[in-house]
């Protein structure tokens, strides 16, 4: 029997200071997330400098708790994995430098991980991948369809041309006067509302797997503006339901079409918006009779965490990727280029 592989991962790309230990790429031994959301709420969004300050205050405590929970020592790890990008540069830098220090002090290998690769690999914690695989990545900063022919290879076959889906959620939430973070609030409202307004769906050219949400966002804002001018009563729940229906429709349809066209065996949902109930329901429905297996991560794996970074790091380590001591944070790290980087 081959020896077990242990990866210790660190994630600090936005406003969560996180560390985790994963066994053989799939078994979570410990997972610790120190969320800063309470600190940023008063500003109505993440303040990058404040996020960075929290990370440097939290980082050693988060590591200590992780190792305590795992009842393990850093020296038992095969490698340290860390999010090198994309994300907030100041926030990333804390994790990257902490990871380098940890790897150097213990003289163990260091592996850089792409944050979105992490979100995709969160799904492998629950179920082994079968290729070709298609990932629908939806978050505050990303909306893309990623095709994977094998482990560690990523091809973006569709992406947003303007706003990310999560961004549209945040802006609409703000217009409706909902508290930060707005995405989950809209989802909640949409569950009790009805689709009474026919908001546009941006299908773009035939055959395109790209997305566009800025038109939808404007349509919602215009609708609110017009009905206010006419002195009509707002039904926030119905607006939320109608907006969400439009987003979910496009995401689900395009994912389904792409899955068919590329003949994939598995579809996975990834990113913060993967927690959205409406999206989870529609995807489950759509793929229920298709001959394609659908993976939807549990809620705790949808938000940023380090277990997913360890999951992606496990494969990168397996494939021989090693970061040098000059590893830097890269706030705009490209997923395809990351996938085809040299070892």
């Amino acid at each position, binding site marked *: 029997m081959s020896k077990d592989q242990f990866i210790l991962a660190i994630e600090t790309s936005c406003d969560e200071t996180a560390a985790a230990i994963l066994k053989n790429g799939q078994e979570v031994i410990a997972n610790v997330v120190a969320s800063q959301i309470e600190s940023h709420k*008063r*500003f109505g969004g993440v*303040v990058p*400098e*404040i996020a*960075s*300050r929290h*990370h*440097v*205050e939290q*980082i*050693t*405590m988060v*590591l*200590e708790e992780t190792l305590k929970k795992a009842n393990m020592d*850093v020296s038992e790890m095969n490698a340290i994995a860390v999010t090198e990008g994309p994300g907030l*540069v*100041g926030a990333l*830098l*804390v*994790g*990257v*430098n*902490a*990871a*380098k*220090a*940890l790897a*150097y*002090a*213990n*003289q163990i290998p260091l592996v850089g991980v792409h944050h979105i690769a992490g979100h995709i690999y969160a799904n492998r914690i629950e179920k082994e991948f079968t290729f070709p695989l298609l990932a629908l990545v939806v978050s505050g900063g990303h909306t893309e369809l990623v095709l994977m022919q094998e482990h560690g290879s990523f091809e973006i076959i569709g992406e947003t041309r303007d706003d990310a889906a999560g961004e549209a959620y945040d802006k609409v939430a703000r217009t409706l006067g909902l508290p930060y973070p707005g995405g989950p609030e809209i989802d909640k409202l949409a569950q009790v509302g009805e689709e009474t307004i026919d908001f546009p769906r941006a299908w773009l050219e035939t055959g395109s797997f790209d997305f566009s949400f800025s038109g939808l966002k404007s349509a919602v804002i215009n609708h609110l503006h017009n009905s206010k001018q006419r002195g009509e009563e707002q039904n926030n729940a119905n607006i939320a339901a109608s907006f969400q229906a439009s987003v979910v429709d496009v995401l689900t349809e395009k994912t389904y079409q792409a899955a068919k066209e590329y003949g994939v065996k598995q579809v996975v949902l990834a990113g913060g918006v993967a927690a959205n109930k409406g999206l989870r329901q529609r995807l489950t429905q759509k793929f229920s009779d298709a001959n394609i297996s659908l993976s939807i991560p549990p809620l705790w794996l949808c938000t940023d965490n380090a277990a997913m970074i360890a999951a992606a790091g496990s494969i990168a380590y397996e494939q021989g990727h090693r970061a*040098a*001591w*000059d*590893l*830097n*944070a890269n706030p705009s790290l490209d997923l395809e280029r990351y996938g085809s980087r040299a070892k």
Partner: protein
Amino acid sequence: MSILAIDTSNETLGVAIFDEHTNSTLIEYKENGKAKHSKRLMPAIDHLMKTVGLLPQDLTKIVVAKGPGSYTGVRIGLSTAKMMGWTLNIPVIGVSSLEALAFNGSNQSLKICPFFDARRGLVYTGLYETDQTGQMKLVKEEQNVLFADWLSQLKEEAEPIMFLSPDLDIHKEMIKEVLKEHAILPFEHFHKPSPALLAMIGKDRSVENIHQLTPNYLRLVEAEANWLAKQKEQNNE
């Protein structure tokens, strides 16, 4: 018995290794310029350690410059020092970057004003003097202040003051204008902080809790300052 000293808080990247047995610096590395500290720090540590034939577990203490300075730079140093210290289970000592710079002028019977430019006419600064034991003593608290206001305070001291700063060029004329013959400005070399001195300053300091070691920013985040001001306003209403 070796101390690792790290300074990435300002433009100069500094790393030194100090040997406690012989009470001397084994090796010191200083690099000036704007290239990324995050890329260069760990290779520099690795190189120095190899050069003197040390392994990470040979380290007994880490001293780190905790700011003020570039927020990002300070955090690069602190993340590295805290994590290394924590995993090696050795103490980490944070030293003010201003105090470390002030040591470049120690053993002078002069008051010393180290400062870093903080843009928009502001500086991070404090006023130090060497006490009888050779340690630096704060005469005026470290602060983030308009340099013009600070200089008029220093003028009232009515005695010679040595200015030390990597950003001296930006403020030189104003210093001479306000302090006149009381402005002491040494050679260029003395305006860059020395990691070897940093190790010396920190070597006998009492140990702090690693988790609690935080940067010496000397300034609130703007969003937070605005928020606090607004809270205060509302409370007064």
